[in-house]
């Protein structure tokens, strides 16, 4: 919100946000809707009950094309890209030489090219990193400016989207497909960042407004802003880059070892060979001093990013800090995530959070806070 509105970029759906009564804020250099008339709480609950439409056009859509592109990209991510089947998508991380995380992203195999979706705030650095590493090998790295990206999320998402494109019913979680909607070539993935079933749809700029309007014309769909996007992903135990993940945090500390593919682990077919590989693989074998956990405060007060945790109600020593937190509308209470020392990371461990000069009890809790609704 500190950004000057005049310096902010807009997405092609900007007029639609205003028409739907959005409160707009600066986010990663874009003017984006933080909430609409419904408000964060109802938008969140509506997405879990029916379907929500999110404009995520600020995110970076990147195409990689060239010889052995999958093998080449593996030099930047601890993920099996070579083994990613056509029509499938996989979660990945750009790591650095210290084993920290530079960004998290999605990689899709779209046949003759790879399609990546990266975070808005990191997209220019990501493209620069990929150009430096991949262009010398004859691979082109192209950030798309001619496509918008929307997410339709929630248990009704399939029924809603199938009215425009029946083939989406055949898609499973993390499938990707090229399908026409109202004559426009859409690149659809069955994925999202809310913990619900749903789809992410890359659509040509010229067709984005019509698509968004027709989806919002369905009584089951509401427009959802960044506020509810944040509480939905938090309840789903999903990390926000810049808060829960950063350049100083490794995937192992972040509880993202599952994203490090078997082929890239010690003993795998293509073990290591990514930035920070020695550190990350050693941590996978020997463990880490801290790790990301879910946190449930005992009371009703939300514990937000930056709150410091202690191992005792009085005195004691610091025992980590909160990296994301707020009120979970579906949980009907406060939920947080944070990093704590390994010794305090066990489920049910009581810690104390320092909040407005008082220490309030908080318990280490299982993630996600709400069960996922993915269609596997």
């Amino acid at each position, binding site marked *: 919100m500190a950004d000057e509105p005049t310096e902010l970029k807009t997405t092609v759906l900007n007029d639609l946000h205003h028409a739907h009564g959005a409160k707009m804020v600066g986010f990663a250099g874009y003017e984006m809707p933080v909430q609409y008339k419904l408000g*964060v709480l109802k938008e969140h609950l509506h997405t879990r009950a029916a379907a929500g439409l999110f404009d995520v056009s600020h995110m970076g859509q990147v195409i990689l094309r060239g010889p052995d592109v999958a093998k080449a990209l593996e030099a930047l991510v601890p993920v099996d890209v070579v083994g990613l089947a056509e029509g499938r998508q996989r979660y990945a991380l750009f790591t650095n030489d210290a084993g920290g995380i530079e960004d998290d992203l999605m990689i899709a195999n779209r046949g003759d090219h790879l399609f990546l979706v990266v975070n808005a705030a990191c997209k220019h650095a990501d493209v620069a990193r990929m150009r430096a590493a991949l262009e010398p090998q004859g691979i082109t790295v192209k950030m798309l400016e001619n496509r918008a990206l929307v997410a339709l999320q929630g248990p009704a998402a399939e029924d809603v989207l199938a009215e425009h494109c029946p083939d989406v019913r055949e898609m499973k979680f993390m499938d990707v497909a090229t399908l026409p909607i109202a004559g426009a070539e859409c690149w659809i993935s069955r994925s999202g960042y809310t913990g619900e079933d749903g789809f992410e749809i890359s659509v040509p700029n010229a067709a984005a407004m019509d698509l968004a309007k027709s989806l919002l014309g369905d009584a089951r769909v509401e427009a959802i802003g960044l*506020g509810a996007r944040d509480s939905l992903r938090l309840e789903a135990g999903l990390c926000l880059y810049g808060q829960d993940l950063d350049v100083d945090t490794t995937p192992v500390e972040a509880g993202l070892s599952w994203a490090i593919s078997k082929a890239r682990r010690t003993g795998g077919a293509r073990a290591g060979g990514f930035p920070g590989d020695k550190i990350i693989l050693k941590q996978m074998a020997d463990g880490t001093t801290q790790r990301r956990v879910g946190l449930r405060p005992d009371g009703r007060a939300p514990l937000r990013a930056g709150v410091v945790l202690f191992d005792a109600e009085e005195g004691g020593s610091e025992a980590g800090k909160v990296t994301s937190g707020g009120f979970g509308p579906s949980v009907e209470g406060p939920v947080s995530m944070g990093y704590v020392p390994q010794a305090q990371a066990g489920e049910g461990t009581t810690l104390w959070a320092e909040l407005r000069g008082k220490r309030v009890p908080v318990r280490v809790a299982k993630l996600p806070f709400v069960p996922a609704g993915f269609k596997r």
Partner: protein
Amino acid sequence: MKFTEEHEWLEVEDDLVVVGITAHAAEQLGDIVFVELPDEGREVTKDEEVVVIESVKAASDILAPLDGEIVEVNESIVADPGKVNEDPEGDAWFFKMKIEDLSVLDELMDEKAYKAFIS
């Protein structure tokens, strides 16, 4: 009803001053999910932080609008913070204060002045 620049409303009822936040403030804050009220009997001075409210977006402090004693707090908004969004200038009052001289309220904005202040 009188108003402060901190977006509180004050109304005299049986020689006590009832205090809450305005509909404008509630709308700006968004969905309120947590309220912490002061202890009854607490002596407060003007501009002292007396209430913490948290919306889905952020935490905010409510300041004592006047010197006085907190004599009653509205526990129903602690149990159901959403009431503050539903009826901010009615059922969802925050606390009642006893103050020495009710005439100090005359210095505060009336509804017309507050409307001009927020426009």
